[in-house]
């Protein structure tokens, strides 16, 4: 995949830069990295990061040091569907351990691993601000809350159907 934003995305980058005063375009870095991760396979390769650096006219190291600091930026390829299950206190006392175990068994992978078909990656994360609706996970842009084994089954089915 050649790393190059579409015309539409390039316009989006311009729009983001316009949110800041003259000369403060470095502030666009995190929003543009989000855009890049969405556009180029769900993770940030060195090539992607270098491209972002050239777009924003900053040095590549300024991009690397930021990309590696924030947990939402994936430094390695991930499956098409990333299950990010919260494991912090409030979720733990509401049964997140059991949900994590269930997903592991169901998908036959451990935390941090991807299924052989490249469809699913399981990741544990820290509090996502849905503690009252626990157990929960993030899937793409949205939260899946009040998880039960049945709900997990349905989510996996939903993803498989979408992938076909």
């Amino acid at each position, binding site marked *: 995949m050649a790393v190059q934003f579409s015309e539409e995305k390039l316009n989006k980058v311009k729009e983001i830069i316009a*949110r800041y*005063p003259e000369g*403060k375009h*470095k*502030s*666009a*870095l*995190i*929003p543009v*990295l*989000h855009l890049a991760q969405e556009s180029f396979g769900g993770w940030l390769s060195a090539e992607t990061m270098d491209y972002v650096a050239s777009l924003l006219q*900053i040095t590549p190291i*300024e991009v690397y*040091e*930021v990309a590696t*600091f*924030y*947990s*939402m*930026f994936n430094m390695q390829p991930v499956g098409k569907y990333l299950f990010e299950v919260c*494991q*912090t*206190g*409030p979720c*733990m*006392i*509401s049964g997140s351990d059991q949900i994590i175990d269930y997903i592991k068994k169901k998908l036959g992978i451990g935390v941090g691993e991807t299924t052989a078909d490249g469809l699913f990656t399981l990741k544990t*994360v*820290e*509090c*996502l*601000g*849905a*503690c*009252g*609706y*626990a157990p929960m996970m*993030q899937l*793409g*842009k*949205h939260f899946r809350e009040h998880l039960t084994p049945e709900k997990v089954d349905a989510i996996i089915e939903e993803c498989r159907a979408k992938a076909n």
Partner: protein
Amino acid sequence: MARKLLLDKAHIENIRYYDVYRANGGYAAAEKVFKGMSPEQVVEEVKKSGLRGRGGAGFPTGLKWSFLAKPEGVPRYLVCNADESEPGTFKDRYLMEFLPHLLIEGLLISSFALGAHRTYIYIRGEYAWIPDILEEAIEEAKRNNWLGKNIQGTGYDLEIYVQRGAGAYICGEETALIESLEGKRGNPRIKPPFPAVKGLWESPTVVNNVETLAAVVPIINIGGEEYAKIGIGKSTGTKLISACGNINKPGVYEIGMDISVEEFIYSDEYCGGIANGKRLKACIPGGSSVPILPANLLLKTAKGEPRMMTYEGLNDGGFVTGSMLGSGGFIVLDEDQCVVRNTLTLARFYHHESCGQCSPCREGTGWMKRVLNNIENGKGKMSDIDLLWDIQRKIEGNTICPLGDAAAWPIAAAIRHFRDEFEWHVLNPEECLKRNYGLAHYADPLPVPAAVAAAV
């Protein structure tokens, strides 16, 4: 029914949209300001209200605003802190999802009061669907001339932008947030200089929590004095509490700061009691950073009085027998929960979230996590409990930002009040893998448990 000032319209269908919000009294406060209040008068009204920061620290908002430096020819900024990452806290999300125009109206009035023309909402990256809601509301406000140029013919200009973070609890700390907004790693800055003098792009900046800024709207509507009549003493007005854990009705509640903790947990208006007919064991009443309290000390102060849901009430007894209101993240544990395991998840959280600048925090949080992991898994020694105490003491107060304290306090409080549960894990290495310690005496009526008396 308690008086509601923030969520009073939350039940109205489509209140998310401008027309509905406006038809239900929305932008009346902004109208009032533009029809005859000076920025100084707005600040004065907020001072009179006694409003204190809802992000966790409880600093008086009006006072904070009056510290903002105003050098000639230098822009000033308002930044809305929507990073909301303190475990147990999910109230700002509720406001933004369901009442985006309330926040925008609050931002408009506050920006006007501070003389800011560019205001940023810094929202945690994981709330990935909320920027769309906010941006749509911003567009609507603009179309109706509540944002943009020459707002309502007053000559005042304001733009509001939404900036997403990307997963870092530390970016809720105001100077780390500013660094992140400048496109850098979220490393907190050494203060002074304070943001009020040198903040975003070296300009004077005020950072306030979402709920704080939304509260400015009812304050202008009803007047600061009227607002200050709600609550007890210096805990004025209403507060959003996000309640979670083992209760019947987890969710976001608006309380007047004049009810007791007992009423909040057991009344049907709020949490509706402990789930599954179980008994209350412990509670972390103000977000994961504040001290955990056993049931008896939660419901009654050490003096035996009912504990109130106010800044002072939850803090009664200091850290020896009290806790803090913090961000309003109210985490309830029933008799089946393991305090050691809960503390371990929090230690892991702070280790994961430490920015790594200060060695006591970077190394200490990881060390505490490993020691707790051993105790939880039946591999702990008695001396580990004292070691944990020692490590947390050495983190507290020795870091650039308060994340170190936030990591130390939950460990200290767990040992202070639940030491026998830690010891039981050490003495019963096999049994602790199979069952939990249970309720023991934690819900017994006061007098204060021996461990607490010893610490006094």
